[in-house]
């Protein structure tokens, strides 16, 4: 087993029956509460989704610092820009499809161009929202936020990382944190390292040889670990980077992975265009081109179904990642 001990992951991580399952949005709710306790400037705004986005924990503890916005995401972004211009640190919360989806221009102009510290929290991202269907499945959100100057983009892998990302967001300017509705494997522990812009090597080769590296973000990091462990049984040496911060990308670790393994597979629950895979490809094309494969949504909309059914249908299970790795290895010269 080649779990990197420095990542301080849970024990029995590969035991699907033993691993705890908790949605990342829960970590946000806890982190926001802590952020509120830590910094009196923190205010929380929500667009009529207080409980499902887990903002209710903060609202209950700090009612005077909670602002109910109604179903008006453009107003939420612009009111937050005003609050932040004044000196508050607003966290604005809705579903990713509506914020940063519907209110993109307001986020770009009044938050990022103004460079004021508004934290945009998009919950229920990805196709794993499930039965709600394509209208509610944000799979473009990292592309549209990553492209805006001054913006930091984070897609935490699990509940603990979501909590840490929420707290760390206090220290930077405009941030987009991408969360998910479904319960997903709790891979990390409260002790696991987290630093914005610093990827975590969660799985590594146990020898000097690395056949391929996976750069993943969000809960799919777990599927990447599963794929690596299965390939290890077949004799392949794989490295898995948890690149929770999609912007700014951890260029140092990505470059090292490209140099050490000569082949990269990116994994994200997002359109292949514009997200983590693009960020990695943009960087490597310029600095150290190696064969790449991309696991994600291929230029189509989502649809209704159970989360697991959808991940399978859209090719984001560990078997799909495994296939992508074998393919990228076969492309190595």
């Amino acid at each position: 087993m080649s779990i990197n001990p420095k990542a301080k992951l849970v024990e029995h991580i590969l035991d699907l029956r033993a691993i705890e399952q908790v949605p990342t949005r829960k970590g946000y709710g806890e982190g926001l509460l802590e952020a509120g306790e830590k910094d009196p400037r923190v205010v929380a705004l929500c667009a009529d989704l207080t409980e499902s986005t887990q903002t209710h924990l903060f609202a209950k503890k700090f009612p005077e610092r909670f602002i109910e916005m109604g179903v008006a995401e453009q107003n939420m972004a612009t009111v937050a820009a005003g609050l932040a211009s004044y000196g508050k640190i607003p966290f604005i919360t809705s579903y990713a499809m509506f914020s940063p989806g519907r209110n993109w221009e307001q986020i770009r102009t009044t938050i990022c161009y103004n460079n004021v510290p508004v934290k945009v929290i998009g919950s229920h991202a990805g196709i794993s929202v499930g039965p709600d269907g394509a209208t509610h499945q944000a799979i473009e959100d990292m592309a549209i936020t990553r492209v805006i100057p001054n913006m930091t983009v984070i897609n935490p892998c699990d509940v603990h990382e979501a909590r840490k990302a929420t707290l760390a967001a206090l220290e930077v300017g405009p941030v987009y944190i991408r969360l998910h509705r479904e319960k997903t494997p709790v891979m990390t522990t409260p002790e696991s390292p987290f630093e914005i812009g610093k990827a975590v090597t969660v799985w590594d080769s146990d020898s000097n040889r690395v056949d391929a590296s996976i750069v993943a973000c969000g809960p799919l990091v777990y599927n990447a670990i599963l794929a690596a462990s299965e390939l290890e049984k077949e004799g392949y040496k794989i490295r898995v980077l948890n690149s929770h911060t999609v912007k700014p990308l951890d260029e140092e670790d990505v470059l090292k992975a490209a140099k050490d393994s000569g082949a990269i597979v990116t994994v994200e629950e997002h359109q292949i265009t514009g997200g983590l895979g693009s960020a990695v490809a943009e960087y490597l094309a310029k600095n150290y081109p190696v064969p790449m494969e991309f696991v994600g949504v291929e230029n189509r909309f989502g649809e209704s179904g159970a989360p697991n059914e959808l991940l399978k249908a859209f090719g984001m299970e560990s078997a799909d990642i495994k296939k992508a790795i074998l393919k990228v290895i076969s492309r190595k010269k």
Partner: protein
Amino acid sequence: MHLHDEKIKFLEETANKIRESIIEMLVEAGSGHTAGPLGMADIFTAFYFHILNHDPKNPLWPDRDRLFLSNGHICPVQYAALAHAGYFTLDELKTLRKFGTRLQGHPHRGALPGVESTSGPLGSGLSQAAGYAYGARMDGKRFRVYCLMSDGEHDAGNIWEGAMFAGKYKLSNLTGLIDRNNIQIDGMTEDIMPLEPLRKKYEAFNWHVIEIDGHNFEEIVNAVEEAKAIYEKPTLVIAHTIPGKGIKEIEFDYKWHGVPPNKEQAAKFLSELRTLGGKITSEHQ
């Protein structure tokens, strides 16, 4: 706080100088909006030379009143007013829209002293001003927040979301002002997308509404004073203005919304403004 005659004369003369600066800036820039800035010259003069509690030499003074401009395209009038008020030199006005300038084609908060908000994409200023006012009220701050808007941008949904928000939270430290000049790029506002009854709409959103002649300094000042005495809701001032006010050829003509004068026109307009010598007064005065 009534205006005495001498103060009114001073404001009229200042507004005229600001109009001259606007024409000079626009002809130099070769692009930009003409009608809106001229039409709002009296209101900007009233704010920067009488209403606002501010200090041009200390633009970040924490207790200053804040003026948010929502329809950023009329920024030449704000830039001219700021320069005449002493925030920066009059010379710098000539850099409008040029590479390296602090006077961006649409205003950028932080780029230029006195500019409190970034604007350009329409309909987003009121919400930002409301957020600012909300934050200030949380901390018991006494300064006031003003948001100057156009009528045309009331086609946008964001502004009505902001109006609903300010009404719900009774932001009495916020005063909105609409430049009701009835024109927008494609024509008259009531032909493009009817806004009336504008007053009733804001009243229905729980605002206190005052209608004034936007070229009458006493009415402008009195409306803002009245707003300070309304504690239970935000106040909206609908300022009826004449687009292009001060230059006969431009007045009321929507075609002047988004274009600058050429050199010959500018010379003619400047001489017209100089001959008037500050005698641009309201029909009602």
